[in-house]
């Protein structure tokens, strides 16, 4: 026990080491949850003890995609829907890299949907953080593949007539070995979950529900970020280990969050490594 107490700072100043300070403040709206998710990610990197120089951060197009421009890591802001195949190339080009894909619901699940299910199927070693704000924010608030039935967006002025994806179920069915869902109102759990996913080999996917006060929120009578945050608090329940089939989101229904899938399966690289020996045998014959 020391005589003179040591002041310890938590918060902004430790996060700053991972931010491009020459680009602060960021462009996200007041009340947008993406910044919170980025903060959780940065603290998760520290918690996981990863070497930041070996971390590659890949994003797509959209509000969430802008995160790549703010983190002080090797970061790649790629084209719409294509963060995952770009990340695949990085992962296979240098298997020593830690690969993180950080993007939005439209980028990963609509235009990027095909790449998502195949990347999960291959069990490529990467961590995907999907910010789900239920619409296409960057372009002004259009319908997305996670927009709840009946919700208003700029392209569903009479209410959405499509069912959204049950995202954890989609990922589990595709073969992801770690699937979790949190909201921005669960920052501590989210941080721990991301840290787990970062060190776990294989395809890890974390859906993060996030407020979009200016667009989705405003069009659906939740124009303050606080409205949606209270909504998450009121409606969410943590059920770790829940069956992904049972975590579908229904309007005004329970939001089930937690870690749903955490299994072991050989990664793509585990399997491909064996090819080198087999190729050599065949060549020598």
């Amino acid at each position, binding site marked *: 026990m020391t005589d003179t107490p040591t*002041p*310890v*700072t938590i918060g*902004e100043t430790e996060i700053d080491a991972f931010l491009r300070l020459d680009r602060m*403040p960021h462009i996200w709206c007041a009340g947008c949850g993406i910044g919170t998710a980025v903060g959780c990610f940065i603290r998760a990197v520290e918690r996981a003890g990863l070497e930041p120089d070996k971390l590659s951060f890949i994003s797509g197009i959209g509000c969430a995609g802008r995160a790549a421009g703010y983190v002080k890591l090797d970061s790649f802001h790629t084209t719409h829907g294509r963060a995952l195949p770009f990340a695949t190339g990085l992962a296979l080009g240098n298997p020593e890299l830690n690969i993180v894909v950080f993007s939005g619901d439209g980028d990963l699940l609509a235009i990027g949907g095909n790449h998502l299910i195949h990347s999960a199927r291959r069990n490529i070693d990467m961590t995907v953080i999907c910010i789900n704000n239920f619409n296409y924010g960057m372009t002004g608030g259009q319908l997305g593949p996670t927009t709840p039935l009946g919700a208003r967006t700029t392209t569903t002025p009479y209410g959405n007539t499509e069912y959204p994806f049950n995202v954890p179920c989609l990922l589990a069915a595709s073969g992801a070995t770690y699937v979790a869902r949190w909201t921005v109102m669960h920052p501590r759990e989210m941080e721990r979950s991301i840290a787990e996913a970062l060190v776990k080999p294989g395809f890890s996917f974390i859906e993060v529900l996030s407020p979009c006060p200016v667009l989705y929120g405003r069009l659906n009578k939740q124009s303050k970020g606080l409205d949606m945050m209270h909504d998450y608090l009121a409606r969410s329940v943590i059920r770790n280990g829940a069956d992904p089939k049972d975590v579908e989101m229904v309007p005004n229904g329970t939001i089930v969050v937690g870690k749903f899938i955490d299994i072991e399966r050989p990664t793509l690289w585990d399997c491909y490594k064996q090819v080198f020996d087999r190729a050599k045998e065949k060549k020598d014959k």
Partner: protein
Amino acid sequence: MKMWRVPFDLAEKATRPTKVLIDKERCKGCGYCVEFCPRAALRTSDELSSKGYSLVEVADESKCLGCGLCTVLCPEFAISLEIVATKDREDILRV
């Protein structure tokens, strides 16, 4: 605080002197920190930032527990806490 059973580690967990620092260039007045602080230590102020957002200010610093919820919730990375630890216990700051 009235307790009918006093925890053994009450002294460690008691409120430590904490300074709450709010970055006025970053705060966008979303109010998450104000709303979810378990001790209502923060409030929205009348002061506007250079970009026109209503800034958050400390209502009562003595109430701050140093729990850090405001720092992890803030989407702008605008809050930091300077906590005077009674021991070298950085790990207790990470819940």
